[in-house]
C-alpha cells in the first residue's frame, strides 16, 4: 500500500477506502515484456494477476481462496484471511439472521465437491495450425484443465452451482495471455486465418453468461486472458487523462493512479477483480458515478481489435459530432465485436476528504421521496443508497462483535432513541447510506444540505458506522453467497433502472412477485427478496435486488431459481423498468426480442468496421 509519508487527511481517506477492499499483495509473476513496448519509457506496471489464477483465487466460488465466511465450531459466523479488514472478525448475529430468514439450519450442509478433478474434463479440441503459429510468435498459452475450467464461467448462479457440483459444460480449449495490443492483433489475425473462436476474458466477474462457451461450438475455443496487459501507458496531467491497457484490474488502476495523486473514481462493486476492458465491454457503472460519471462518461478513447482490423478514433477529444459515436457500439457489446485493448480515461486529482454517513427513515416511501428530492436538487453525494427494511436487517446481521461494553451500550441507546423516542417501527424503517467526497469544507457543507433535506422526510442521521457497513455489504455479498450455498441457500442479485414515479411500485411488485413465484414453485420457506435504490439520476433511479431462498426439497433448484428470476424480470419490464442498468446481459436480450426491448436489434444487426 502506498504510504507516502505525511498522513494527510486526503491520503488517509483514500487509503481507508482502499484498505477496505484491498490491502493484499500478490507474488509478482514475471511476464515477458511486450516487444513493442520495450523501447518506450518504462510504463507504470500493476501487480499482475497470476496466469494461474487458481493459485490465489477460488475455482468454484468468489474471490480469494483464503477469504471466506464460515460458521465456526461454536456456530458463530467468522470471516477468514487477512486481506480484508473483516478478516478474523466474528459476526454474532449472522447465524440467527441466516436461520430465521431462510429457515436454514447449520446441521443441513450442502458442501461443494472438494477439488477439481482434472481427469473428468474432456481434453481440448485443438486447432493445431493455430497453436503452431501461436507458439512461433512466443505468446504464452496453456492447455491445462484447471486454466480452462477457470475461464469457462462468470459468476451467475447456475455457473457457480454447476462448478460446486463438479459439473462442467463446454470449456475453452486453450488460454492465451497476450502481453500488449500488438499481441492481440496477432492473435485475432491467427484466429481468423485458422477459423478459431476467441472469447475475451478479463476479470471473470461477468453475471450475464457472456463467458459461457456455446455447447454446440465445433471450432476450437480460445480464451483470450487480458490479465497481463495491465500497464498504465501514460498519464496526461494537462488534460487529466490516462492511457491504460484494458487488462488492468480496478483496484490496481486506482492504487497506481493514487500514487501519482489521481484517481478515476470508477468503483463498481466488483472492482477488486473486474478489469477496465470488462467495464467498457459491459457499460459498467461505478458507485461514485454522481461525481465521476459512469464508464461512458469517463471514456475518452478506445482501441479495439476486431476481425476486420483495429477500431479507434484519430483524436483524444471530449466530444465529437461526426455521426454516431463509435464508442457507443463498443460499450455494451460484451466482447462480441472485438477485444478492447487500450482505453484513455478521464482522471481526477485525489479528493482531499471522504466521509461516510447514514440516515434512518421511518419507511421506504419516505426514503425514496427523499432520494428523489436530492436528485431533483442535484446535490447527490458521491454515493447515496437506500436499503429497504430487509436489507437493513441483513446489514445489521453483519455487525461484527463489539469489543467494549460501552459501544454495545451506545448501540442500545441509539436503538432505543429511534424506536421508542422517535416511534420508528423496526419492521418498516429503512436506511440510506451516504458517501461524501471532495475538499473538507465543501463536504461538510454538502453533508449539512443532504441531512437537511432528509430531515424534511423524517430522516434521522444515524452515524458513519452504519454507512460504512452498508457499503461493506456490497463487497462481501458474493462471499456471503458462497456461505449460503454451503447450507442449501442460493441467491443472486439483479438490477434495473426505472423512472422516479415508478420506483415504489416496481420495488413492491417485484418483491411480491418473487415471493409468490417461489411459493408456486414449491419453495418451502419464504424467500429473501429485498432491494435498494442504489443510484439516482435526474430522471430515475437504479434499483438493485437481492433474491435468495432455501432450496431444500427442490429437485432442480437452479431451474426454479431461473424461472423465478425470469418472472421477476418480466415484472420489472411490466412496471416500466429496464432489463439491466449495469450488469449487462446480451444473453437476456436474446430473450429481448420476445420481451420487446429495442436492445433486441443487437441480435440481428451486423455492425461492420
Amino acid at each position, binding site marked *: 500500500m502506498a504510504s507516502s509519508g505525511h498522513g494527510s487527511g486526503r491520503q488517509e481517506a483514500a487509503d481507508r477506502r482502499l484498505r477496505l477492499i484491498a490491502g493484499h499483495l500478490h507474488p509478482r509473476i514475471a511476464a515477458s515484456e511486450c516487444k513493442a513496448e520495450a523501447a518506450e519509457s518504462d510504463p507504470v506496471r500493476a501487480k499482475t494477476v497470476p496466469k494461474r489464477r487458481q493459485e490465489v483465487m477460488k475455482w468454484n466460488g468468489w474471490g480469494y481462496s483464503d477469504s471466506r465466511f464460515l460458521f465456526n465450531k461454536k456456530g458463530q459466523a467468522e470471516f477468514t484471511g487477512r486481506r480484508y479488514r473483516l478478516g478474523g472478525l466474528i459476526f454474532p448475529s449472522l447465524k440467527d439472521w441466516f436461520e430465521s430468514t431462510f429457515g436454514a439450519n447449520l446441521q443441513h450442509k450442502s458442501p461443494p465437491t472438494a477439488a477439481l478433478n482434472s481427469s473428468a474434463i474432456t481434453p481440448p479440441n485443438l486447432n493445431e495450425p493455430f497453436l503452431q503459429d501461436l507458439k512461433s510468435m512466443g505468446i504464452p498459452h496453456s492447455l491445462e484443465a484447471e486454466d480452462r475450467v477457470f475461464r469457462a464461467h462468470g459468476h451467475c448462479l447456475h455457473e457457480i452451482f454447476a462448478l460446486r457440483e463438479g459439473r462442467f459444460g463446454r470449456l475453452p480449449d486453450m488460454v492465451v495471455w497476450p502481453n500488449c495490443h500488438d499481441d492481440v492483433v496477432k492473435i485475432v489475425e491467427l484466429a481468423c486465418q485458422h477459423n478459431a473462436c476467441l472469447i475475451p476474458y478479463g476479470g471473470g466477474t461477468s453475471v450475464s453468461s457472456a463467458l459461457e462457451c456455446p455447447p454446440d461450438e465445433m471450432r476450437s475455443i480460445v480464451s483470450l486472458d487480458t490479465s497481463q496487459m495491465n500497464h498504465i501507458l501514460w498519464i496526461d496531467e494537462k488534460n487529466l487523462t490516462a492511457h491504460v491497457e484494458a487488462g488492468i484490474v480496478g483496484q490496481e488502476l486506482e492504487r497506481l493512479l493514487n500514487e501519482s495523486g489521481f484517481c478515476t473514481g470508477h468503483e463498481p462493486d466488483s472492482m477488486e477483480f473486474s478489469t477496465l476492458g470488462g467495464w467498457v465491454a459491459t457499460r459498467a457503472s461505478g458507485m461514485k458515478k454522481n461525481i465521476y460519471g459512469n464508464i461512458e462518461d469517463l471514456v475518452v478513447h478506445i482501441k479495439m481489435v476486431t476481425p476486420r482490423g483495429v477500431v479507434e478514433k484519430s483524436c483524444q477529444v471530449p466530444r465529437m459530432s461526426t455521426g454516431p459515436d463509435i464508442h457507443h457500439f463498443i460499450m455494451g457489446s460484451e466482447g462480441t465485436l472485438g477485444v478492447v485493448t487500450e482505453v484513455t480515461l478521464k482522471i481526477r486529482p485525489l479528493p482531499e476528504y471522504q466521509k461516510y454517513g447514514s440516515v434512518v427513515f421511518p419507511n421506504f416511501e419516505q426514503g425514496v421521496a427523499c432520494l428523489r428530492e436530492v436528485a431533483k436538487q442535484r446535490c447527490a453525494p458521491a454515493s447515496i443508497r437506500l436499503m429497504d427494511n430487509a436489507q437493513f436487517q441483513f446489514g445489521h446481521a453483519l455487525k461484527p462483535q463489539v469489543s467494549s461494553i460501552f459501544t454495545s451500550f451506545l448501540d442500545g441507546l441509539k436503538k432505543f432513541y429511534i424506536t421508542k423516542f422517535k416511534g420508528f417501527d423496526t419492521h418498516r424503517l429503512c436506511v440510506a447510506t451516504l458517501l461524501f467526497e471532495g475538499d473538507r469544507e465543501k463536504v461538510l457543507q454538502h453533508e449539512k444540505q443532504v441531512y437537511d433535506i432528509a430531515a424534511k422526510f423524517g430522516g434521522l442521521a444515524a452515524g458513519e458506522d452504519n454507512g460504512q457497513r452498508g457499503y461493506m455489504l456490497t463487497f462481501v455479498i458474493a462471499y456471503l453467497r458462497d456461505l449460503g450455498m454451503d447450507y442449501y441457500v442460493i441467491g443472486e442479485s439483479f438490477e434495473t433502472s426505472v423512472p422516479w*414515479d*415508478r420506483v415504489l*411500485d*416496481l420495488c*413492491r*411488485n417485484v418483491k*411480491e*412477485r418473487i415471493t409468490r413465484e417461489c411459493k408456486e414453485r414449491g419453495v418451502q420457506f419464504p424467500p429473501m427478496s429485498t432491494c435498494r435504490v442504489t443510484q439516482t439520476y435526474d430522471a430515475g433511479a437504479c434499483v438493485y435486488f437481492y433474491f435468495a431462498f432455501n432450496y431444500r426439497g427442490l429437485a432442480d433448484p437452479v431451474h426454479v431459481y431461473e424461472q423465478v428470476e425470469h418472472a421477476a424480470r418480466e415484472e420489472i*419490464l*411490466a*412496471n*416500466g423498468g429496464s432489463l439491466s442498468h449495469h450488469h449487462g446481459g446480451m444473453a437476456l436480450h436474446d430473450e429481448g426480442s420476445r420481451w*420487446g426491448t429495442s436492445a433486441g436489434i443487437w441480435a440481428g444487426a451486423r455492425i461492420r468496421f
Partner: protein
Amino acid sequence: MASRTLYSQRDPALKKRDDFEDILEERRNSSDLKYALKCYMPVLYKGVTPCKPSMIKTMVLQSEQLRYVVTELSKETGEATEVIQGEALAILEEMAHKLHLGTVRFFAYMLNKAFKVLYQRIRVNEDGIQRLQQAIQEHPLVLLPSHRSYMDFLIVSYLLYTNDLALPVIAAGMDFLGMKFVGEMLRMSGAFFIRRSFGGDRLYWAVFSEYVKTILRNGYAPIEFFLEGTRSRTCKSLTPKVGLLSIAMEPFFKGEVFDVSMVPISISYERVLEEALYARELLGVPKPKESTSGLLKARRILSEDYGNIHVYFGQPVSLRSLAQGRINRSQYNLMPRHISRRPGEDVQVFVNDVAYKMVRLQEESMVLRPWVLVATILLQNPHGVEAVWLAEQTAWLRGLAQAFGAFLDWPDHISASRAVASGLALHPNLVRAERGRVRLATEPKGPGARAPEEDLFNHAVTVLSCASYRNQVLHVFLRPALLAMAMDVAPTSRKDDVYSCFGYLRDVFSNEFILCPGAEVQDFDEACFLLTKCSAIQILKQDIVATERGRPTLSFLSAMFQPFLLGYQVVCRYLCEEVAESLPEKSYVAGVRSYAVKRILSGELACLEVLSSDLQKNVLAALLRMGALRKSKAGELVTLRVNKSAINTIENTLGGRVSTQKPVLARL
C-alpha cells in the same frame, strides 16, 4: 379448439360448491339492539390505516391525474383553474360516500327487523366469507354482486357487517339521490353516486375514475358495483357494462397495485320483492292505482312471505392471473401514468371478456329453487296441467338440470310433489291449484265490462312474472337449447350445417343471454357434450342426430326458448309489415307493442312474452348490431332506418325457412 375437447370437457354436474348456513337463525334468537351495537373491528388490507371519507376527497382533489385534466380544461376553455377545481369539488361532493358507522348500525338494526319478517332464511356460504376475509388482507378487492333487486345494495353490506368484514364502498345510480332522505342514508352507509351518463364530460370522468382508483389503490375499502349496470327486471343476467370494471383494473395495469381480487357474488331470491312491479314496468303499464297510502303498501309487503335468499360469495378471481399472457403491461410505460388515454384494443377486449366471465360465474352460483322448474313447465302449458303430471315432469327436469350443472337447492329427501307444493304455496298470486290441476292464475273476469286489452295485460303480468322465474334457469339450458333449436332449423343434420345454425342463433341472441364473445366453439362443444351425456343426441362422423330417447328432451329445450325465437320473429315482422322505411327510435317500443297486442287479440299469436319491453329492446340492439337497422341522428331525433331484406332474411332464418347464409367454418 378441436372438437376433441369434447371428451375432455369438465362435467358441470361435478362442480364442487360450498354449503350454506342460515344467518337469520342466530338473529332470531338474540337481541337486535345488541347486534347493532356489537363491536365492529374489521380486518383491513395489509393493515392499512382507516381513512376518513374527507381524506379521500382531499387526495382525489390533489391527485396529479385530476390536476392534469383541470389544467388541460383550463387551457382549452380559458377558464381559471380555480373555477374548474371548484367544479371538480362540486362533483366530488355530489358523488362521494360518507361512510358512518352509526348509520350502518342503524341500518343493521332496521334490516334485521325487516329481514326476520320478510324472509324465512338468509343462507350464506360460510366458506366464501372465510375466503373473503383472507382476500381482503391480501389485495384490493372488487365485489361484483348480481343485481335483481334493490335488496342487493343492502344485503351485501349487511352480511359483511355481520361477519365483521370491511364494509364496501358501493357505486349507485344518481336516481337514488332523488329520494332525498334515503339517498343520504345510503351515502352514509357507503354508497357513492354516479350519473347515468356523462359521456363527453371529461372533468366528471376524471373525478369519478380518480375517486374509484384512489380507494382501490390504497385498499381503503372493497369496491362494490353491479356489472349489469341496473337491476335485471327479468331475472336474467344482463350484458355487462365495462366502464367501471376497466377503471378498477387500471391500477393493476399501471403497476400501482400488485393484484386486484374480484369476487363474484350471486344473490338469488326465491321471490323478488319487486316481482309485480317489474312485470308492469316491462309491459309499460303504470303501477296499479293504490287508494291506500304508501305506508299501508309497505305493510302489505311486510305481511307476505318472500321465502329464502341465497348469497354465494364466489372464489376470488385474481386479475393478475387472468391478465397473464394477455395484457402487455409495458404499453403503459411510455407515457406518464397520470395522463389517461384510451385503452388499447387488447385491453378493451380483455376487460370485456373478464366482465362476461364474472357474470357467468355469478350465473353459475345462482341457487335455484324447485319452483323455478315448476314455472318453466307451467309456462310451456299455459292451459294448466294435472298436478301429478306436474310433479313427475318437475322431477324429470330436476334430473336434467342437475346433469347440466344447475345449482339446485332441492334436498334429496324432499319428494317432487312436496317441492312443487311448497313452490305453489309461495306464489299464490301467480298460480292456482284446483281440483288436481295447476294453472297460471288469471284474474276472474270482473263485473264491469273491461276492455280486452286490460284483460290481456293482467294476464301478461302473470306470465311475465312467471317467466322471470323460468329465466333464472335459462343459463343452465342455454347452450344445449341453442343446439336443439339449431337442429330444428338446420336444413340437414350435417355437423357443419348444425354448427353454422348454432353460431347464427348464438349471434342473434347474444344481446339476450350471456354468451361470451368469441366462444362459439367452446359453447358448441359444451352443448354437444351435455346433450351426448344425457343421450339426447348422437354425434356421428358427419352428422349430429337426435336419439329416439332424446326427442322429448330436445323439444322441451326448444320450447323453453320458443318465446324468444317468436319474439324476435314478431319484431322482424312488425318492421317489415308496419314500417315504411324508417321510424323514430322513441316510437319503436310502443309500435311493437301495439302490433303484438293486435296479433294476440286476433288470435294469430299466443305468446305473451313478446310484450316485454326488455325483449323488444334486446331485439333492437341485435338488429342494430347485425346491421339490419341503422341509427341516424337529426338533431334530437334519432331515427331507425330499416333494411327490409336483411330483416326478412333474419326472420326467415329464425323460422327455419331459409338455410343460413353464413359461410361454413372450416373447423368441422
